[in-house]
């Protein structure tokens, strides 16, 4: 167990190192002199010289990387040039909003994806299975921002039962908070539900032909008990860990969902930063999402290891 843990944690160190190289490298993609790009409209040579010195642009590339990485390791992700606030503060400010949205979306995807995957596998080859597969294809093919528009047109414009945009913190009014997030959560969880359905279906199909399921049936157990107690519990192990990998998809989707529903989260932060040419914020957001994704994968792997006795043996 300990050897596995040490080995697994050791892998994330070089991965994080390369993530930092990629994110630092983004700045090198800026066409022309980065100091000019950072200065924006300002063309005063003194300002440009000041920026060049402040951001160590007059130093060789490896030195600049070392200085940047040193700052990152001390929690200094730079400063937003538009809002004049440390990037880390901005990220921490927006993170709870996106975390709540992503959490609700995961719930939606689990509640839709797992039952439909189980039913599809149990009714393999029937119209129900066909219908569930059509649902999965629909989920994978629908751009979530378009689905957001369709939801707004139906539930906000036509029926007038849900707010079209905005966000109310749960601490202020939990009811309105849920009302503002229910549509975005469904929109964001839709594609993940399709992925979960496919994973659950294939895991269930595999498990349903296993010897222990045949034994359970041979004992004369009720089919419901065989499916829910014997098959599903085993099929869920890979499904739940694969669900953790969906986190990245949800974060990508959150950028668009937050834009459609005007939710002031992580996604909106990066889009606003892109248009304000606030490159430190863009880098900070990518670094934080990548780190979160790596850590979540680590936890998923450890959880998989812990809940699967065959791996521990």
């Amino acid at each position, binding site marked *: 167990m300990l050897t596995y843990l040490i080995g697994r944690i050791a*892998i994330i160190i*070089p*991965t*994080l*190192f*390369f*993530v930092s*190289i*990629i*994110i630092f490298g*983004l*700045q090198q*993609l*800026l*066409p022309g002199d980065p100091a000019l790009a950072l200065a924006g409209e300002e063309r005063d040579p003194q300002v440009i010289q000041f920026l060049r010195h402040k951001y160590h642009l007059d130093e060789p590339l490896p030195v600049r990387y070392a200085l940047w990485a040193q700052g990152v390791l001390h929690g200094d992700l730079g400063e937003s040039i538009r809002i004049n606030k440390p990037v880390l503060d901005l990220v921490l400010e927006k993170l709870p909003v996106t975390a709540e949205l992503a959490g609700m979306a995961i719930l939606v995807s689990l509640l839709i994806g797992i039952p439909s995957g189980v039913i599809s596998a149990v009714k393999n080859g029937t119209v129900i299975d066909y219908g569930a597969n059509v649902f999965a*294809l*629909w989920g*994978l*093919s*629908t*751009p979530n*921002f*378009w689905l957001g*528009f*369709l939801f*707004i*047109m139906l539930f906000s*414009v036509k029926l007038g039962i849900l707010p*079209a945009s905005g966000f109310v913190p749960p601490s202020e009014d939990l009811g309105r908070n849920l009302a503002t997030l229910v549509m975005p959560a469904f929109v964001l969880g839709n594609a993940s539900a399709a992925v979960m359905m496919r994973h659950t279906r294939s895991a269930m199909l595999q498990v349903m032909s296993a010897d222990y399921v045949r034994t359970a049936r041979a004992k004369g157990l009720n089919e419901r008990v065989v499916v829910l107690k014997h098959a599903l519990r085993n099929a869920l192990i890979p499904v739940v860990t694969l669900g953790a990998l969906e986190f*990245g*998809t949800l*974060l*990508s*989707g959150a*950028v*668009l969902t937050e*834009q*459609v529903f005007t939710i002031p989260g992580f996604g909106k932060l*990066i*889009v606003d*930063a*892109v*248009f304000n040419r606030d*490159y430190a914020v*863009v*880098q900070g*957001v*990518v670094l934080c*999402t*990548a*780190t979160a*994704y*790596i850590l979540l*994968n680590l936890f998923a792997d450890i959880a998989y290891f812990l809940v699967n006795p065959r791996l521990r043996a």
Partner: protein
Amino acid sequence: MTAILVDRETSLAEGSDDQPWRRAMRRLVRRRGAMVGLAVVVFFVLIAVFAPLVAPYAPTATDWGAVRKAPTLAHWFGTDEIGRDVLSRVIFGARASLMAGVVSVLISLSFGVPLGLLSGYVGGFLDGVLMRIVDAMLACPFLILAIALAAFLGPNLTNAMIAIGISAMPAFVRLTRAQTLSTKVEDYVEAAKAVGNPHIRIVLRHILPNILAPIMVQATLAIAAAIIAEASLSFLGLGQQPPAPSWGSMLNTAKNFLDQAPWMAWWPGLAIFVVVLSFNLLGDGLRDALDPRHR
């Protein structure tokens, strides 16, 4: 025994001396979903190529007397906020979307496949370093990395395609490497080594042709993802720039008129959905046809 007999009969019926590719193509043709997907993709490709002949109006032609008009006989899909014909813009928008889908995947393939072959075939330290880089790229969520790349490269369609291509590349490196690892220990590769073939010939002549099937499947599904990614970047203003039409940028404009002119959002979104669904159907069908284990 029965299974073996059935398999033998099937292979005899299909012509046992046929090339495996021909047999796979025959299996593909028998899959209705894949054929429907292929037909729709061909339809959209033709529309994109012959857009000037098919579209009833120029995509940028404005008509101030027909601003935000609902669908009529003169404008089947209605008009937008400055009186442009939505149908014509959807037709011309197919060019940006399909081109972005294909070019991005070509970028991913042209870097991802050689790197995957190199990593899988050479192995050792190089494989370790390349895989850590791929892990690092996969750790950055696909669209967030594409947004960041597009932001730093500058907002236009070419840069969006480069950004999507780079962001989608790690999946191809991983897949090619995994396939290379399992193929390089096959007897025919060992035999090719034993007779003194140079490494480059072994990789290009003996390994690559045998791992093409899963790469083709992945490429087809990646086109679908790339079309959504281009639409997403254009929706955010990082792809095709106005007034040039693109389905994503049309949706970006439409979001301000959802209550007054909902048709501005219906059609470009439906076009994305139909094309992406078609590529997904085709990709699923290809996977089933090329890999009999999935049948």
